[in-house]
């Protein structure tokens, strides 16, 4: 019985299709990859290029009509003091949130990776993930209430007779304000709360991969705990920290809802994009603003890749 006899016996279009795909595996892979490739190519890259193209146009100062001619004028506008402030403000906030999340997240992740067992491990996962289950807006609004001038935190300070301390802190320019909920510190705290699960989980994953024996070996060789941390644990866990920081940094960079609800009303990049494209019809400037986080993240990811962050994702 020859091969051709076997194939000839099978009829029907579906069976033929199945045969063709079996004989030419390349075609199968092509067909499977086509939809996601189209999605990425048209929806994602297409919109990205539409955005990039917009940012090279400019708005006519006099009539407010967009001029479809190539110019770098819009990018120059980013460096006007009021616009540059927004970029600096957003980047500083994103960096502060990232550092804060790493400092708080590391011990939590360390405990979970090294000591939590059985039931406690489950509770840990639940504790870290639970904030992600409830609506983002609900969390932000409840923080607004917690931080309010007549909110629970202020009440706690007053009850402990530490109200003066809080007021002294709030009197500091830039990070202070009339109450926590209208200060940059308040914005920072809410960002920190909302994004911290994205920092803890990658750190924990990377810590679990650090062999316990290495820590013990370091101790055996006479290193103090601080030295072990600096020279053994941190370098080995660093890819996890960087992976987490990619999340916290980029999420803070792009958020435009938290600074609108909690904080001093000073704009962040996301809000500026929203205002310029929506109310002002100044799409070129909005596009130029939107390119800023893309560039920042490109540089950041390049550095992170060199540090091996993507091995710990």
């Amino acid at each position, binding site marked *: 019985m020859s091969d051709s006899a076997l194939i000839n016996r099978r009829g029907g279009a579906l069976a033929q299709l199945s045969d063709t795909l079996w004989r030419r595996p390349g075609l199968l892979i092509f067909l499977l990859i086509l939809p996601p490739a189209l999605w990425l190519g048209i929806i994602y890259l297409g919109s990205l290029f*539409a*955005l990039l193209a*917009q940012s090279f146009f400019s708005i006519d100062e006099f009539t407010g009509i967009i001029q479809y001619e190539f110019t770098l004028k819009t990018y120059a506008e980013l460096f006007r003091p009021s616009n540059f402030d927004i970029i600096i403000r957003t980047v500083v906030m994103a960096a502060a949130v990232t550092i804060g999340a790493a400092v708080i997240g590391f011990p939590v992740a360390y405990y979970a990776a090294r000591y939590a067992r059985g039931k406690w491990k489950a509770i840990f996962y639940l504790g870290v993930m639970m904030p992600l289950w409830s609506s983002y807006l609900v969390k932000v609004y409840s923080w607004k209430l917690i931080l309010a001038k007549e909110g629970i935190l202020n009440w706690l300070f007053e009850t402990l007779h530490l109200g003066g301390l809080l007021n002294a802190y709030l009197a500091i320019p830039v990070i202070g304000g*009339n109450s926590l909920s209208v200060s940059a510190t308040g914005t920072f705290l809410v960002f920190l709360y909302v994004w911290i699960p994205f920092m803890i989980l990658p750190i924990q994953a990377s810590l679990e991969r650090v062999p316990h024996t290495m820590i013990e070996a370091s101790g055996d060789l006479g290193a103090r705990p601080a030295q072990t941390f600096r020279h053994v644990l941190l370098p080995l866990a660093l890819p996890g920290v960087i992976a987490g920081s990619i999340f916290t940094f980029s999420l803070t960079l792009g958020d435009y809802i938290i600074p*609108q609800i909690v904080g001093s009303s000073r704009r962040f990049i996301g809000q500026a994009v929203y205002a310029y494209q929506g109310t002002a019809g100044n799409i070129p400037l909005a596009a130029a603003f939107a390119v800023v986080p893309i560039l920042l993240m490109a540089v950041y990811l390049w550095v992170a890749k060199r540090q091996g962050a993507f091995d710990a994702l």
Partner: protein
Amino acid sequence: MKTILKSGTALLLGLTVAGQTAAQTMITEIGEGEGQVNIVAWPGYLERGETDAAFDWITGFEEKTGCKVNIKSANTSDEMVALMNEGGFDLVTASGDASLRMVAGKRVQPINVDLIPSWSTVDERLKEAPWHYVDGTHYGVPYMWGPNVLMYSTDVFPEAPKSWDVVFTAMDFPDGKPNQGRVQAYDGPIHIADAANYLMFHQPELGITSPYELNEDQYAAALDLLRGQRKLVSRYWHDAFIQIDDFKNEGMAASGTWPFQVNLLQGDKTPVASTIPEEGATGWADSTMMHADAENPNCSYMWMEHSLASNLQSDLSVWFGANPAVPAACTDGRGMQTAEGCTTNGMDDFDRIKFWTTPVSSCESQGTCVPYYRWVSDYIGVIGGR
């Protein structure tokens, strides 16, 4: 980014369609209803008794005409313009800062007021208002209007503040404490008009005739005033419910606001009241406008008639704390509104209100004015402390 792409597409669509519909004609008679009508509206503008059973002005219309009302809520004027540019809607309740944009973009069609029997009952002051009556043509049917009032805490102010200076200049409030950190301002560039309105009264030498038409000098003066205000304001209000929360939990004492928040706070027994100070106030006036390519014109005309003739005007003015476009709705008992209620909402203050319109570069009063997109970027600067 997605929104940018969307508005880019909308813009493109708008441009292509605008060319085609330049020569449009008015409807001359109303035929059979098409079975439905699609309306873009402000939240709370179209109620069918689902939020509160007492407030329903849609069910009756649907039963009477057989036109099912499909509602699409929009939160900002810009959203409304974008939705109308996308198409697929018949009507929109547009404010003055959106209506002229849509007329200029040919997104709405002229309205034949002869086909609306209740047109004669519309407030004379609104019939030919410049935000929907352009070059002798009606592009909209007045819907609702209201002032941006000054809300104040009655704990702090034993009597109503006489001037907007409580939110613009540093001072001590009657309770002896400074106003710094206890006042709010609107987080939209249109707030520059409130500053201009204040200057119009206090610095007549600037020669401002309309707070929406400012030359460079007048504009700079308004921005200076707002820079001073930045030092007093901890948070600019953007969302009505956040402002309500701030008056409850942040110890706010005074702010410009909509009657909507005043009503809700008073309903909650918070000690606040509102006033229109001596300088007058800015305000909004909405009109029902019809899409240039409306697919359900007959039901649309039936709705416009319904919007003027039914309990809508009366009950909506209670619901929203606004004023009906038909003055009779205050008194004739077609709904819950009363003459006192209308007075509270500012019905008698029409002449003291400067209604929102979009600032454009070629303005009537003085040739060239600062256009709206600069209001946006400069107000961002002011809030950022520049």
